[in-house]
C-alpha cells in the first residue's frame, strides 16, 4: 500500500515537472515567433519613422516683385537676357520684406534660407509668362535644405541644425506667419537624383527600375516557360537532361553577386556593352531569375493532371498540340505567379548591379534601354551612404516606395494563386 502510494506520488510530482517543461517549451516557441515578428515590426517602424519626413517638403510662399530693373531684364522673351538676368535678388528682397526684423544688412543670412533651385523656378515661370515682368506675384519656392531640416527636425539631436540662432528665429516667425510651410513632397516623385537633398527625387531610379524590369520580364518569362516545357514534357531521360536539371537547381542557389561577376566579364568585357545601362542590368537579372521561373513553371506544368493530356492525345493531337493547346493554358496562372515572385526578387536586387556599374551618380531620367541609369535599390544604397542626414530620410522614403511595389507584387501573386489556381 505505502509502496503504491509513494509511486503515485512520484508520478504526480514528475508529471508536474513534465507539464512545467511542456509549458516552457511552448513558451520558447512563442518567444521565437515574437522575436521574429518584433524584428519585422521594428524594421518597419524604424524605416517609417525615419522616412515619413522624406515625403514632406518645406516651401516658402511669398509675394515677389518681379522688378525688371533690379534683375537687369527689360524683355522677358529674350533668351539672352533671361540667361544673364539676376533671379536671386527679387527672391531675397521678397523674403526680407516678409521678415520684419531683417534689414538689408542681413541679406546674406536671408539668402541662405532660399533654395539655390528657387531662382531657376522663377526664371522658368517668367519664361512661360513673360507678361509677369514688373508685376507682383505670390509664388511658392523650395526652401533651403538647412531650413527643411530645421523645420522638420527642430529639437532632434540626431540632426545638426546648420542655421544660426537668428535664422532659426526667423524661420519660427515665418512658420507662424504661414510663409514657411511643409507640404506633400511632389518634387521627390518628379526629379532624378541630386546633390541637394531638397531637390533629390526617385523618378530617375523608378524609370531605371522599370526599364530594367521590362528587359528582365520579356527575356526571362518566355525563356523560363520554354525551358520548363522542354524539361517537363519533351526531355528524354538521359544524362544531358539530368545535367541541365542539376544545373538549374544549383544556379538557383548561387549568390547573386556571382551573377554580377558574370555580367561584368561577359557582357561588358567580352561583348563590349556599355556600363550601367538597363539592358545589361536586365540581362544579368534575367540570368539570375531564370532558375526561379523555371522551377515554379515546372511545378505548374506538373500539377496539370495526365487525364487532360490523355484526352487530347486520344483525339489525335500531336505532343506539341497537347502542350500548347491544353497544358500551357491550364498551367499559365501558376507560371505567372512564380514569375511575379521572381520579378519581385529581381526588383529588390542590388549587389550584381553594383558590379556592372549601376552605382553612378545620374541626375537625368533615363529615356532608353542604352541610357545610363540607376535602379531603386541602388538609389537607396547611394543615399544611405551619404554623409548628409537629409539624404537618410530620402533613402527611407525610397525604401517605403520600393517595399510598396514589392508588397503589392507579392499580394498580387498570392491573390492570383488563390483565385486562378485550380485543383483537380
Amino acid at each position, binding site marked *: 500500500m505505502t509502496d503504491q502510494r509513494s509511486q503515485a506520488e512520484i508520478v504526480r510530482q514528475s508529471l508536474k515537472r513534465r507539464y512545467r517543461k511542456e509549458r516552457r517549451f511552448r513558451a520558447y516557441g512563442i518567444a521565437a515567433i515574437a522575436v*521574429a515578428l518584433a524584428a519585422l515590426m521594428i524594421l518597419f517602424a524604424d524605416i517609417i519613422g525615419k522616412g515619413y519626413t522624406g515625403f514632406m517638403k518645406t516651401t516658402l510662399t511669398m509675394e515677389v516683385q518681379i522688378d525688371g530693373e533690379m534683375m537687369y531684364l527689360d524683355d522677358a522673351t529674350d533668351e539672352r537676357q533671361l540667361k544673364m538676368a539676376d533671379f536671386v535678388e527679387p527672391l531675397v528682397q521678397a523674403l526680407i520684406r516678409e521678415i520684419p526684423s531683417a534689414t538689408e544688412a542681413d541679406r546674406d543670412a536671408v539668402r541662405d534660407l532660399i533654395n539655390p533651385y528657387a531662382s531657376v523656378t522663377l526664371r522658368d515661370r517668367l519664361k512661360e509668362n513673360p507678361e509677369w515682368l514688373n508685376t507682383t506675384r505670390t509664388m511658392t519656392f523650395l526652401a533651403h535644405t538647412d531650413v527643411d531640416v530645421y523645420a522638420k527636425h527642430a529639437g532632434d539631436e540626431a540632426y545638426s541644425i546648420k542655421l544660426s540662432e537668428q535664422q532659426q528665429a526667423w524661420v519660427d516667425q515665418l512658420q507662424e506667419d504661414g510663409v514657411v510651410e511643409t507640404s506633400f513632397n511632389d518634387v521627390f516623385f518628379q526629379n532624378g537624383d541630386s546633390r541637394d537633398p531638397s531637390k533629390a527625387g526617385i523618378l530617375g531610379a523608378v524609370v531605371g527600375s522599370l526599364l530594367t524590369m521590362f528587359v528582365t520580364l520579356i527575356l526571362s518569362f518566355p525563356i523560363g516557360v520554354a525551358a520548363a516545357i*522542354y524539361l517537363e514534357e519533351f526531355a528524354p531521360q538521359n544524362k544531358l537532361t539530368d545535367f541541365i536539371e542539376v544545373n538549374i537547381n544549383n544556379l538557383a542557389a548561387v549568390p547573386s553577386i*556571382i551573377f554580377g561577376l558574370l555580367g561584368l566579364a561577359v557582357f561588358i568585357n567580352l561583348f563590349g556593352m556599355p556600363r550601367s545601362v538597363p539592358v545589361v542590368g536586365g540581362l544579368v537579372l534575367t540570368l539570375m531569375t531564370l532558375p526561379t521561373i523555371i522551377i515554379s513553371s515546372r511545378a505548374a506544368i506538373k500539377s496539370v493532371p495526365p487525364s487532360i493530356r490523355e484526352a487530347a492525345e486520344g483525339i489525335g493531337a500531336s505532343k506539341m498540340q497537347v502542350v500548347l493547346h491544353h497544358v500551357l493554358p491550364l498551367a499559365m496562372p501558376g507560371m505567372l505567379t512564380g514569375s511575379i515572385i521572381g520579378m519581385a526578387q529581381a526588383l*529588390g536586387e542590388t549587389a550584381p548591379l553594383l558590379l556592372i556599374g549601376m*552605382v553612378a551618380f545620374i541626375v537625368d531620367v533615363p529615356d532608353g534601354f542604352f541610357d545610363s541609369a540607376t535602379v531603386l535599390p541602388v538609389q537607396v544604397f547611394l543615399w544611405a551612404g551619404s554623409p548628409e542626414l537629409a539624404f537618410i530620410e530620402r533613402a527611407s522614403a525610397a525604401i517605403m516606395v520600393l517595399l510598396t511595389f514589392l508588397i503589392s507584387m507579392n499580394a498580387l501573386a498570392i491573390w492570383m494563386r488563390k483565385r486562378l489556381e485550380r485543383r483537380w
Partner: protein
Amino acid sequence: MQPANLLLLTLVLAVVAYGLGYARSRALAMPLGGIRHLKSLPFYYGARAALWCGIPALIVLALWAAFQGKVIQVLVIGSLPPEMIPADEGSASLLLSKISNVASGALPPGFVEAPIVEAAERLKALRGQSRMLMTALVISVAVLAGFLGWLRIRPRINAREQVESILKWLFFACAALAILTTLGIIFSVAFETFRFFEKISFVEFFFGTSWSPQTALRADQVAAEGAFGMIPLFTGTLLISAIAMLVAVPVGLLSAIYLSEYANKRVRSIVKPLLEMLAGIPTVVYGFFAALTVAPFISDLAASLGIEASSQSALAAGGVMGIMIIPFVSSLSDDVINAVPQSLRDGSLALGATQSETMKKVIFPAALPGIMGGILLAVSRAIGETMIVVMAAGLAANLTANPLETVTTVTVQIVTLLTGDQEFDSAKTLAAFALGAMLFLATLLLNVIALKIVRKYREQYD
C-alpha cells in the same frame, strides 16, 4: 537602326511572312478543292514561313549586336599610329574611354592629341557603318529566308511536323541556357583567377594573413605589391555567418516547431506569411537598417557598458543577417517536420509522452538530417550575402574573433574592388574574381551537400 528597333522590325517582318505564307497555302489548296487537301492547316504553313524569316535574322542580329562593340574597339586601337598603341589592357581601356568621350562630345577635341581626335572620328564612322551594315544584313537575311520559306510551300509538305520540331529545338535551347550560364560563370571567373595566380602566389593567397589590395594601385608606389592573404576575409565571413546562424537557427527552428505542432490553423495562416515577408524584403533594406539603426545602437550600448565597440561591427551585420535568414530556416524545418509521419507522433503520445517530449525525443531526431540540410543552405546564403555586409560590416580586414570589432567579408571585398575605376590587368581587379571563384566553390559545395542530405532524408518516409 538601333538594335531594339531592328528587333521590332524583324518581328514585324516575321508577322508579314506568316500572313503571306498563310495566304499562299490557301491559294495552293484552292485548285485541289479546299484546305483539307493540304498536309497541314494553313496556320502551320504561315508559322513555318515566319520561323524561316525570323530565326536566322535574329541570330545574325544577336551575334552582330554582341560583338560589334569589341570589333570596333580593336579596329580603332589598331588604326592608331604605332607609337600610341597601348602596351597593356589597362591603358587600352583608358585610351578607349578617352576616345569615346571625344566621340560623344563629352570631351572637347581641343584638349587631346590629334591622333585621338582622328580615332574618335573613325570610331564615329565605324559605329555608323556597323549600324548600317547590321540593318542591311538583318533585313536582307529576313527577307531572303522568308521568301525561301514562302516559295517552298507545297501542299505535300508536312508543315506542322517541321514547325513542331523547330519549336522543340527552341525549347531545348532555352533549357540549355542554364548550362551556358554555369559555363559562363565558371569560365569568366576561372580565366581571371588564373591570371591572378600568375601575379600572386597560391601560398600567399590561401595562407596570407594580411589583406590590403588598395596599396597596389601604382607600380611606383612604396609597398606596391599590396597584400593578398585571404585568411582575414575568410574569418570575417565565418564570424558574421556564425553570428547570423546563432540568431537564425534557434528562432527559426523554434518557430517552425511551434507553428507545425502547437499553433492552430488561424494563427498559422497569419504568422507564416508574416515570417516569410522577412525573406521578401530586399537586402539593401536590411543593410540600411543594420548600418543606420542597429550598429549605432550596439556601439552606444557597448559604450554605456564600458566596452569599446566599433561603429561598424560584425555583430550588427551578423544579427540583422540572422533576422533575414529566419524564414529560410523556419520554412525548410517546417517542411521537414511536417514530413515526419503522423504515426510516429501518435505512437509516442499513446505511450504517455507529452507533446514536447514527443517533439524532442521522436520527431526532432527523425527530422534532424533534413533540418541540418536546411541549415547548410542557410549558411551558404549567409556566406554569399552582400548588401548587408557591404553597408554594415566595414572594410578593414581585421583578423579577429571579437564580434564588436569591424571585419570585412569576401563579398564586401569583391564589391569594393570592382566598383569605381578598373583596369583589368591589375592584381587588384583580378583578386575580386579570385575571391568570386572561392565564393562560388564554397557555396556550391555547401548547396550540393545540403541538397543531398535533404533529398536522402525525404525519401525515407515516402
